[in-house]
């Protein structure tokens, strides 16, 4: 993948570029908003990662310029610590995701992958299928190899999100934000509880596990084997 990183802090920029480079991505680095906007408008990228506060046009200005030019490249905006209330502002400006600094690299990696592999037309799909697992969005029903799986609404939303991103690492923070709109970290293990309950229901008839735990990162939903 070709990724554009717009970040004025040299240490953070190098940290992101090095990490993404080791993942096998091609990373272009812009140190100012002006350079970033120029690159974003004139070259083609799979994902753009931009800091919110930048010299020259800031992250949101770049975002608005891109969207105004009809460029739909997924954009991840990085923001300063504790400014969660700004998240809405960023998403309204056209950001696809929002991440507060400082972050664990695993978190950034998972989010960049999720952005790059966004399903083409998720809204139109009426059924999600991963292996022998089927989720009917209209009837709100789930079956595993033909066996009906009874899910609570909370679990259904969790499974739907995971099935839209099969084979990808989904961090706890991502699940909290995307599934339940929790923009904070509860001190109780909300995510682990729901994932393990979901897991039990999906494997109730002794089927092979589909949700894998990735240590220190999150969870992956993938066909067994």
């Amino acid at each position, binding site marked *: 993948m070709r990724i554009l990183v717009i970040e004025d802090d040299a240490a953070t920029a190098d940290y992101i570029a090095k990490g993404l480079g080791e993942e096998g991505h091609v990373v272009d680095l812009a140190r100012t908003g002006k350079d970033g906007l120029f690159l974003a408008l004139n070259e083609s990228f799979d994902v753009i990662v931009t800091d919110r506060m930048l010299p020259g046009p800031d992250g949101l200005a770049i975002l608005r310029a891109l969207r105004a030019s009809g460029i739909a490249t997924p954009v991840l905006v990085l923001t300063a610590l504790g400014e969660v209330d700004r998240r809405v502002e960023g998403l309204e400006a056209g950001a696809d995701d929002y991440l507060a600094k400082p972050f664990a690299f695993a978190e950034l990696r998972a989010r960049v992958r999720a952005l790059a592999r966004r399903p083409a037309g998720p809204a139109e799909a009426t059924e999600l299928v991963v292996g022998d697992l089927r989720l009917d969005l209209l009837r709100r029903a789930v079956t595993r190899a033909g066996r009906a799986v009874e899910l609570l609404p909370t679990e259904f939303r969790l499974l739907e999100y995971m099935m839209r991103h099969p084979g990808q690492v989904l961090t706890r923070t991502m699940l909290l934000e995307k599934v339940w709109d929790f923009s904070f970290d509860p*001190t*109780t293990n909300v995510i682990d509880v729901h994932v*393990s309950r979901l897991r039990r229901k999906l494997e109730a008839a002794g089927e092979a596990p589909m949700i894998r735990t990735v240590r220190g990162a999150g969870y992956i939903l993938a066909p067994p084997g």
Partner: protein
Amino acid sequence: MRWLRSFAPRVALLVGGVVLVASVGGAGWGWLRAQDALRRQLDLVLATDAEGLLRDYETYGLRGLAEAATIYARRQGPLRVLLLAPDGRPIAGRLPGAPARLRGFVTLEGEEGRQRLLGALLPDGTNLLVGASLVPVDRAAAALAWTPPVAAAIAATLALVLGFLAARRLEARLAGISGAAQAVMAGDLTQRLPQSGAGDEFDRLAVTINAMLARIETLVAELRQVTDDIAHDLRSPLSRLRQRLEAALAAPRDAAADSATLEAAIAELDETLATFAALMRIARAEAGAGRESFAALDLSALVADTCEIYAGVAEEAGRVLETRIAPGLFLVGSPALLRQALANLLDNALNHAEGRITVALEAGPVLSVSDEGPGIPEAERDKVLRRFYRLDRSRNAPGTGLGLAMVAAIARLHGGRIGLEGAGGGTRFIIRFAAAGVNTPEKVR
């Protein structure tokens, strides 16, 4: 003349001076007007009398007129009459200094002061003169004209005296306020402005300023508390981290041990950063940040959703989460922050209390979360809402000690208040949202 620099006597002096100057200026003009008006009146009297005398002449002839003139002279009234023969010889009456052959009105300077004369020539050449002294007229005009300036002078004097007294009183009141303000500036934030108890504008000002001082005192105390808490709560993990890294550096290199040390260090830093982030979120909420993105939202649905998510968590922990949610309650606010407030209260009940958890949402809207735990002593109920305050029994439970402070900040941001009460041994947290923030569903697009 220190009191002259005060406000009230300056105003009194100014008003008195203006009144005095205006009335002295007006006195001259008033004197002329009064004199003129009185002279006209005198002229009318003279003309009427002359008319009567002429009627006597027409009826009784010159002899009758002469008799009338003699009667006038004998009576010695204010009106004088003189009859002069065509050769200038007096026939009857008396009018000292009268000129001969006078026709019409004239004012003359006589030996008894100014006088007004009216002369008429009779057909036989006899000259009839009627006159009266102008001295009483002048005296009355002067009296009329000088009344306002004298009154003004008295008023100006009184104004100055009252101004002086008001200045002394003002100065005394302001000295009290100024003294208290100086004490506050010197660092004594507990000082309050004195009130006279009269309920006047000074008292009202003092009440307002005292409320401001109370708010400043609370804020400064909170700030001091937070600074102390940050120093304490962030120094300990950072010191621990430093010791651990130093010990690891001194030990011989060992890949497995080094990885473990680094992982532990990152975990410790993440916790510290989480504390920082929580502190900043509280600070932003308290500063009112995020209010601009407030929108009308279905609080009932939000509470129900969040409780549903937590029901599973409670169940896994062997607890029960009960809900009593009135439907269709709307609020103008931030969904993300309100969800966090409820989640923090539920986290708190799960981590630090026991038994059944009851979430209730009633009209108001009033949101409450009750538990059946050991309860919080009354003396500590306010303190648990402070940053970093933890009950002794909770020291080792998970959390940053900031969750409830965040809830309080979110409640305040939404114009609400959070309160705590005992609930059958347990604790009930109650958030009362301001009715002003409530919107009926009809108003929600």
